[in-house]
């Protein structure tokens, strides 16, 4: 057995012999020296810089959006001041722009959407997390989540050809006459179909999967021990939910609802196809209206003057601000409960 000969210790670069030529015995030794130390260190640094660069694209993009839209909307905001948010006169010809109807419409449609969607979404989530047999859970959750995959314009299409006629011919007369809600200011006036109500309804369908998904996640994240403790004390299954599970998951559920709100605020296509697109500030849900998003979508291409354009940009900026804040709050709340971001 030969003893391996050790090389002279010199910090020379590695010899360019492929290892195959090295005998399996007494490996041809090459000192692990300064070989391409520059090479790998540089390559590692380039890699690290590259992924950092890509990662920084995210905050930079966000900042860019904020700045560009803000600067474009600034002339209108400066010209109309606070009145921009409170005036309901939107007259491109006269150069007067007040976004109050659009803002109000956004708020009202979103509230309608949440009022309808939250009980359904939360109820469904509770069912899936606690009461559903396991063979039903996966498929049903999947189907509910699938609602989120339907494109907005397809909802709009369905809204225009199915929902609007349904509202006009059946639902609205039912509400107004049969239930006599027409006496209230909320269900008054001509009911042709395109309305704040229609928009609210469509939004509720679009928002439901988000609330449901987040609620389901945070409900399932509640530890078993909480439920078992309540049951052991003699609570019924429902009382376990209201008494032990929901309080634990409360901030997460609220976060999910606020997330749904964020979605509702920004929805464009489906809303613009069913809301009627009129600058009208009315108490009636049957009346057509505007939301900030649908206003921009509808008028942007035909913006006649610089002021008009700037006003639309200003509306976009206000929408941006509101959704930014709402989404940030939602994320924070969901994070709090330890539910992962959905």
């Amino acid at each position, binding site marked *: 057995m030969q003893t391996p000969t050790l090389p002279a210790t010199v910090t020379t670069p590695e010899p360019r012999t492929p290892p195959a030529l090295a005998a399996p015995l007494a490996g041809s030794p090459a000192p692990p020296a300064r070989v391409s130390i520059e090479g790998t260190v540089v390559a590692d640094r380039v890699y690290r810089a590259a992924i950092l660069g890509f990662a920084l694209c995210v905050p930079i993009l966000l900042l860019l959006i904020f700045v560009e839209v803000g600067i474009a909307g600034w002339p209108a905001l400066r010209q109309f001041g606070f009145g921009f948010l409170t005036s309901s006169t939107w007259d491109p010809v006269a150069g007067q722009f007040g976004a109050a109807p659009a803002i109000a419409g956004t708020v009202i449609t979103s509230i309608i959407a949440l009022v309808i969607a939250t009980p359904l979404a939360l109820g469904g989530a509770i*069912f899936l997390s606690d009461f559903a047999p396991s063979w039903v859970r996966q498929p049903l959750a999947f189907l509910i989540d699938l609602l989120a*995959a339907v*494109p907005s*314009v397809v*909802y709009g299409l369905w809204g225009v050809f199915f929902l609007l006629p349904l509202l006009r011919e059946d639902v609205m007369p039912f509400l107004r006459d049969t239930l006599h809600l027409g006496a209230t200011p909320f269900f008054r006036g001509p009911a042709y179909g395109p309305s704040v109500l229609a928009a609210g309804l469509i939004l509720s369908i679009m928002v439901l999967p988000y609330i449901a998904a987040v609620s389901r996640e945070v409900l399932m994240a509640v530890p078993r021990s909480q439920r078992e403790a309540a049951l052991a004390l003699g609570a019924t299954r429902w009382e376990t939910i209201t008494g032990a599970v929901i309080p634990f998951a409360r901030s997460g559920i609220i976060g999910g609802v606020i997330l749904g709100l964020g979605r509702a605020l920004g929805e464009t296509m489906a809303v613009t196809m069913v809301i009627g697109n009129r600058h009208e500030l009315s108490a009636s849900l049957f009346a057509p209206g505007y939301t900030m998003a649908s206003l*921009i979508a509808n008028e942007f291409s035909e913006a006649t003057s610089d002021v008009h354009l700037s006003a639309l940009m200003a509306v976009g900026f206000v929408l941006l601000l509101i959704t930014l804040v709402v989404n940030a709050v939602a994320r924070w709340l969901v994070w709090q409960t330890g539910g992962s971001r959905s």
Partner: protein
Amino acid sequence: MSATVARMQDAPHPRARGLARRRATSYVMVALTCVAASLAIVPLVAILGYLIRQGAGALSLDFFTSMPRPVGEAGGGMANAIVGTLILIGIASAVGLPVGIGAGLYLAERGGTRLANLVRFLADVLNGLPSIVMGIFAWEFLVRPIGHFSALAGGAAIGAMMIPLVTRTTEEMVRTVPQSLREAALALGFPRWRTSLQIVLRTAMGGIVTGVLVAVARVAGETAPLLFTAFGNQFFSTKLTQPIAALPLQLFVYAISPYDEWHAQAWAGALVLIALVLVISVMSRFVVRSKHGRAND
């Protein structure tokens, strides 16, 4: 003693009176939650059913290959819009994939730092941005300075919307690669960057591709960002610096038009769009599940 026992047996349980009511409430509420869950999927079924009924009639091979006919003529197709959507998806991927995968790698490898948490948070915020705002931003940034609409602007707008989704998927998938794999590569003499790219990223690639498909599905249906960027084009165009047709845009235009023939086309187009989106969503579920199954071995 038996008298005591008898007395005990006769006495009503202290909570018996309330218990029946509470039990009933519980049953009713459980039933209501079941109803809620079922109601939640009614719209999905309704929409799908309606789409199939209305759209199947107008759907034919012609639809994919021919151009829109002038108003008043039945038939025709949306070939320009379908091709346009594909081109836009390509541009969007060119924008969104490098940034998304790069950012995802960054978050997976340097996850706990303050900068990483900030980036992750901001990616979520970007995700919730209204698509119309993305549209007017892209207009202001990419259309106004140039002077005309373009496919590039539209693709960039929806590419930006892909970024948060791809980032999140990449981060999650890279995190599932066990640390031991990384160590094995390092011990072999792999430099760090090659370990990350050739070993870790490659191992996670299956899941990342799935996530990318889901992001593409989501973005393919977006209309609002395209309204003022790609703008739409009634002719067949593949030029990147010119306006280009897109499926959702075409749907919108047809849907709000007064022509019945165009309505029929819109239904067919909607069916194609939703079929694409749903097929990808369903596929992604199955792939993810099987991946997780394997990871548990």
